[in-house]
Each structure stands twice: as structure tokens, then as C-alpha cells.
């Protein structure tokens, strides 16, 4: 497996790719907070927020529908919000029968449900775009600049660095289980659920030991190369005037969104 197997970064020459990672993280977070602050049913503001996302897609050179294609990931969670359709007091819109309940959809409930979905959908698109135009190590570096404690960013950097190595390790374990699980066609191999859980547990324990021993070797190798407690980067981030201007512009647009939502 290659080291960037998990990365969502798309190499392109674009305005968003060149932007300082701090700006991208900051604007993404402000945009998501702004979505959460918009009142229910602020359709015009939602529309403009969507246009903001579309514009960001355009500026990323990834194609206008890039974030849309991957935004389905947050949808299964919508199930959890479905109860507001029936529970908010309001004018009944339609009633239907489901299993043993008579469910009535109210207008207030529908308004709230759709608003929640739109907020989630807009927010996740911005987050998708963020990692598509920012290399993950740059993202971690930006978090460090934004005062996230160094111990956390270092752990995250290690997690990212060794994730693909340990994923390979997991695949080896899974392959080993597979190759020892021969079965007559039509019948299952192995014992009951408890036995299978024990096999999975032993695999997790084995993975732990291999990871632990690997971390020892990694540490020794790092000491040998002069590690003294913190990581250095050859890629110092510098805010240029264009970065400041973009931040100010994006914040102004989001501010106008908020006013539109309150009118």
C-alpha cells in the first residue's frame, strides 16, 4: 500500500490549492459555524451558502460538482433526525400509517427537518473540499499554527504516517484468517459467534503487539536521526497579502449570509 492510500488530496494547480492552509481551515470552520447559526427556513441564506460552496468548487479546478458527488456520506445520519417531522407542533400536512403508528407530518417539523439536512449537507461539502485541496501534513501544520497543542498534532501526524503501514498489517492478518478458514461449499467454516469473536480479539491483540514493537523500532530509528522531542518542517507557511485578502473576503461573504438569514 502506498503512503497516500488514505489521502483525499487531488493534485491541481488552482487558487485554492495555493492558498495558505490556515486560511482554508479557518474559512471552513467559520462557514460551518455560520451554517449552524442560520435559523430554520432561511432559504435565501441557504441558497447563497450553496453558491459559496459552488464557487469554492470552481476555484479548486476540481469541477463544479466535485463536493456534491462525495457529500452523500452524511445522509445516513439523517435517519436520526426523522422524528422531528412528526414531533414538532404545527399544521398537519399529511398523515400516513407505518407499522402500528399513525404518523402526521407537520409543517414546522418538515421545515426543521429540511433545515437540518441542508446545514449538514452544506457543511460536509466544505469539509470535503478542504481535504481535497490541502495536503494532510499541511493541514496538521496549519492546526499547529492555530494553537492546537503540539502533542496532539504530533500524534495525528504519526497516526497519518503509520496508518497505511498498520492497514497493511491488518490486511495480512485478515488474509491469514481467510486462508485458514476453508469450508465445504454451502456450510460455514469455524465455530460459533463466540469463537469467531475470540479469533477477532486475538487478531486485535496480535496487531497491538506488532504495533507496539514497531513503535519501539521507530523510536530508536528516530533517536538515531537526531529526534529531540519535536518535529521540524522544511515547508514553513507564510501568509501573503492575497491570503489575508481572501480571508477577509470570505468572512465578509459569510457575514452577509448571516444578515440575509435574519431578514
Amino acid at each position, binding site marked *: 500500500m502506498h503512503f497516500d492510500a488514505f*489521502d483525499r488530496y487531488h493534485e491541481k494547480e488552482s487558487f485554492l490549492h495555493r492558498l495558505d492552509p490556515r486560511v482554508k481551515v479557518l474559512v471552513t470552520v467559520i462557514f*460551518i459555524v455560520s451554517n449552524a447559526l442560520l435559523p430554520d427556513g432561511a432559504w435565501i441564506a441557504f441558497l447563497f451558502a450553496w453558491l459559496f460552496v459552488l464557487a469554492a468548487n470552481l476555484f479548486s479546478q476540481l469541477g463544479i460538482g466535485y463536493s456534491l458527488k462525495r457529500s452523500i456520506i452524511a445522509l445516513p445520519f439523517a435517519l436520526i*433526525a426523522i422524528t422531528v417531522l412528526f414531533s414538532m407542533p404545527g399544521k398537519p400536512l399529511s398523515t400516513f400509517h407505518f407499522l402500528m403508528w399513525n404518523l402526521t407530518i407537520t409543517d414546522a417539523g418538515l421545515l426543521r427537518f429540511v433545515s437540518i439536512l441542508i446545514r449538514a449537507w452544506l457543511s460536509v461539502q466544505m469539509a470535503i473540499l478542504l481535504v481535497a485541496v490541502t495536503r494532510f501534513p499541511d493541514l496538521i501544520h496549519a492546526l499547529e499554527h492555530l494553537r492546537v497543542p503540539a502533542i496532539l498534532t504530533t500524534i495525528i*501526524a504519526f497516526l497519518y504516517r503509520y496508518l497505511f503501514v498498520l492497514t497493511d498489517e491488518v490486511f495480512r492478518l*485478515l488474509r491469514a484468517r481467510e486462508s485458514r478458514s476453508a469450508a465445504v461449499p454451502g456450510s460455514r467454516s469455524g465455530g460459533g459467534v*463466540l469463537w469467531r469473536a475470540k479469533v477477532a480479539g486475538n487478531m486485535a491483540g496480535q496487531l497491538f503487539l506488532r504495533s507496539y514493537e514497531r513503535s519501539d523500532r521507530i523510536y530508536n530509528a528516530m533517536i538515531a536521526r537526531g529526534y529531540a522531542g519535536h518535529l521540524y518542517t522544511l515547508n514553513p507557511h507564510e501568509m501573503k497579502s492575497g491570503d489575508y485578502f481572501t480571508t477577509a473576503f470570505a468572512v465578509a461573504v459569510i457575514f452577509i449570509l448571516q444578515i440575509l438569514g435574519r431578514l
Partner: protein
Amino acid sequence: MLYTPAPLHIPDGFLSILVSVVCWAITIIVIGFAISKTNKALGEKQIPLMGVMAAFIFAAQMINFPVAGGTSGHLLGGALAAIVLGPWAGMLVMTAVIAVQALLFQDGGLLVMGANILNMGLVTAAIGYGLYRSVAGQSKTVKLTVVGIAAWLSVMAGALLTSLQLWLSGTSQLEIVIPAMLGVHALIGLGEALITVFALAFIIQTRPDLIGEGSESAKASRNWVFAGGIVSLLVVLLSPLASADPDGLERVAKDLGFLSVGQDAPYQVIPDYTVPFLGETALSTILAGVVGILVVGVIIVLIARGMKAKS
């Protein structure tokens, strides 16, 4: 696929801004503690170790075993991380895992990340480690049994907290979300418990030196037992109560003013903020709550005393 999203990760948009901010505040305070404790207790050696361990938890979540009807059990890892790495390091490791899941895979939101870390990283570690420490020095069977219970409870605690946050945000209805979430996670928790127990048994058998017993002072360990015990007790007491009588919980929250605060955005709360507990009925509810907390506290202290006397 390499990575499959888990059901406890709340996406952005599903929690109100106030609930998100309060959860972030709690999470930041606890993580701050964890960082200062880890910095004090561990050398620079621990940082690569914790990083690789975070990758281990992430990768271990890919190990699954078929249960029935196409469903499979797999590991979330909060309790296991706290037991093998210690509570503070376990919390930091889980924080890193949840942060990467949100940043890289959009599994869980950014504004709600505080809530996700709290539900899946901090509470699970407190329960896992607290209950595990409470049986320090006991036989292996007792220990593994308690670890199983702790792993199951940690998943239930995460599910309960998630439900409460969704409800306070006005996203879900309490009488549906609590039984649904707790029902599903009672099963997910079984998978978690089985894998955690078998993994720990395997580690104890092959490398008993890795699971240190006396790394913490007696006082710190007692505090963990206390914290884990309280959270577990809350889950045990609150879950059946909330499932059986969600209206009761809703009424208490309404009387206390939680509901209006949670469901409105803060700019609406501040101008017409009224002190909610001046009403006579509300005052009595609060008194009842305080008495309840006192009773629970006394019971916990008595249990802790009894445990101390035994060990």
C-alpha cells in the same frame, strides 16, 4: 472499502451551536488535563508510541467478525486504549483517531467534533480505565469479566450521550432516539466487549509486562475508580429511566431551562433570558435533583469504601 463510517459520529448540522460549544468546552478542559498529565508522566519516547497506537486503534477498527444476517461486530477501542495505555494517553490517542476520522474521512463534523471526542474518546476511556482499576490485583477471570462489562458500558455511555445531545439540540425526539440508539448499541457494545476481552487476554498471555499494574499512585487510581464508577452508575441509572419514562426526563429538562437554551441559538437566548428556576414547581424539581445526586454520591462513597476495605 478501507474505511467504513461508524454510527456514533455526529455530522455537522445535527447539533445546535450551543450544545456543540458546551461539548467543546468540556472536551478542551479534559484534553488540557490529559496533556499536562502526559507531559509530566511520560518522556518524549511516548509520543511516537502514542502516534503508532492511534494508528493501531484506527486499523484495529477494520478487524471484524461476522455475527448473523450480514451484520458484523467490530472494535471502537476507547476502553481498550485506556486500559493498555493508561487513561490520559488513551484519551489523547482516541482524540487523534476521531480528529483524523473527521478531517480526512468526513466521518463526524468539525464543529461537533468536541461532542464526538467527548462521547467516543473521553467517557469511554474513563469508564474503561476506572472499572479496570477497580479490580486491580484480582484474578484474571474477574479482571476480564469487568473489562467486558466496562467495554459494553462505554459504548452505551457514548450512545446515551449522543442521544441526549441530539435531543437537546432539538434534532431528535427523546422517546424515539434513546431506545433506538441504546437498542442498536447494546448489540454493538457486545461486539466491542468480546473483542476487547479477547484482545486483552491475548496481550496479558503473551506480554504481561506491557500491562503495568502499579504505574499510578494509589490516590490517582482511586480517583479513576471513582470517576469511572460515577459515569457507569449514571449510564446504568439513566438509560432505563430515560427509556421507560422519557417524558419525565423531558419535563425535568424543561423545568430546568435546558430545553429552551439548547434548542435556540444563543442570540435569541440572551435578550429575553429569564431565570428559569424561580417558579415553585421548578424549584422543587431542582431540590429533588440535588437530593438524588447526594443519595447517589453517598452510595458511591460507601461502595468505594467497601471496595477499599476488601482490597
